[in-house]
């Protein structure tokens, strides 16, 4: 698979960590010499994707940016599978930050 083809096939795909946890989306790609060298994920990359609407969404979503080196990608199918857990990359922070509060509600772990 050529790099450009690969890029086309992974942009905007779901990211899954090694435990199968959904931990973001491929929001942008770092390309050097026609090779994909890293995946970018986070609201900080939205402004460059969708004009004023992207800036607005990025502003609401916060400016989080995560760079995942391409070597960390284990497999690409209908999702992009990573080799390690989400927190090790700084992915899935939104859910991890809210969890302690949500867990206080009775029945939240059911």
């Amino acid at each position: 698979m050529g790099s450009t083809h690969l890029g086309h096939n992974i942009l905007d795909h779901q990211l899954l960590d090694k435990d199968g946890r959904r931990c973001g989306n491929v929001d942008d790609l770092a390309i050097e010499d026609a090779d994909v060298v890293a995946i970018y994920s986070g609201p900080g990359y939205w402004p460059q994707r969708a004009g004023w609407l992207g800036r607005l969404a990025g502003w609401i979503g916060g400016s989080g940016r995560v760079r995942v080196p391409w070597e960390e990608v284990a497999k690409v199918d209908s999702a992009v599978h990573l080799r390690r857990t989400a927190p090790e990359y700084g992915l899935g922070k939104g859910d991890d930050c809210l969890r302690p509060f949500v867990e206080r509600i009775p029945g939240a772990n059911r």
Partner: protein
Amino acid sequence: MSKILGVALGILAAIGGFVDIGDLVFNTAAGATFGYQLMWVLPIGVLGIIVYSEMCGRVAAASGKAVFDAVRERTGFAAGLSALIASELVNLLTLAAEIGGVAIALQLLSGLPYRVLLVLAITGVALVIWVVQLETIERIFGYGGLCMLVFAVAAVKLGPDWTQFGKGFIPHVSQNSPWLYLYFVIGLLGAAMTPYEVYFYSSGGVEDRWTPKDLGLNRANAIIGYSLGGLLSVALMVVGAAVFLRHGINPEHLGTIPLGAEQPLGKVGLLFAIVGILFAVGGASIDTVFSGAYNLAQFLGWEWGRYRSAAGAPRFFLTWIVLLVCALGIVMTGVDPVMLTEYAVIFSAVALPLTYIPILLVANDREYMGASTNGPLANTLGIIYLVVIAVVAVAAVPLMIITNVGQN
């Protein structure tokens, strides 16, 4: 045997869950305004939802992708974000209308003040979602919604003019108020093909981990469930024509609709109709609020799912809570749920192509779909319906303006 029973029970729940507030409002009002003349639109709408639900279910089974996952992947971030915002707004309007409908049904049963019942309705919906497993919720509300079959009994008992009824299935344009007639065509199609139904259906397929082995079940659910559910739409239109049009009543208040079952069947008919509406609209409000949360989570890659605990998918959980609170805020202003429904259905007609084009694209991607890729029949129907949807989308807002939201 137990598998057949399971499928049968699922189909029963699908029939009970078919009708939502959009169908209630548009089918009854269409009958009350144009008699049987708009019958021909119903099979077109039902076939449309069958075609795209079956396709979404197949995409979910073969690729593990739910609708908004596919939307983002196929249309990119910018177009996908526009589709997301449009569908979330329409979903919120629909949710608010459904919550209003629940409160009106509760008011007919209890006589308590509307606003108190709105708060009760929203609290009830949140509690049910929190406490009861979603599969059980779907079954309970689906079976409860079967009380709506009272409208089918009423339709037969009313002894409609069967010749006029039959003629209604031949497509034509009314000479009398053609713009209003066309507005109803758009509304009936929009109500039958409401996008939240496919969001919910496809996300459920992904959650239930459907594989190509489940394609038979998917087809049975879509074809049998929606066709039989569509008969309820026919019954509502007959009741609209045979009761409301005959007596010159405009069912502009949701509370008027159950009277259509009372006239031929008495108090028992009335009670079944109110309970049926309560369950049908209550179930639809749960589907709608989940659809809103599914779409946002899928678009942004968050953890989502009804089988996950709130702590397992905190942002998904907070999204549906926020949607419920926003919906409550909208209906508490006192805006009429029927008016909200009309706006929700007409705007959802505008948003339809944004949902269905990416699905058609993914369903044709052999790399994902393998042997389950769209065949000639699914593609032919899919493309015909895309044209129908495109016409509906373009015509919806102008017709809404020309007819003053169906008031003239």
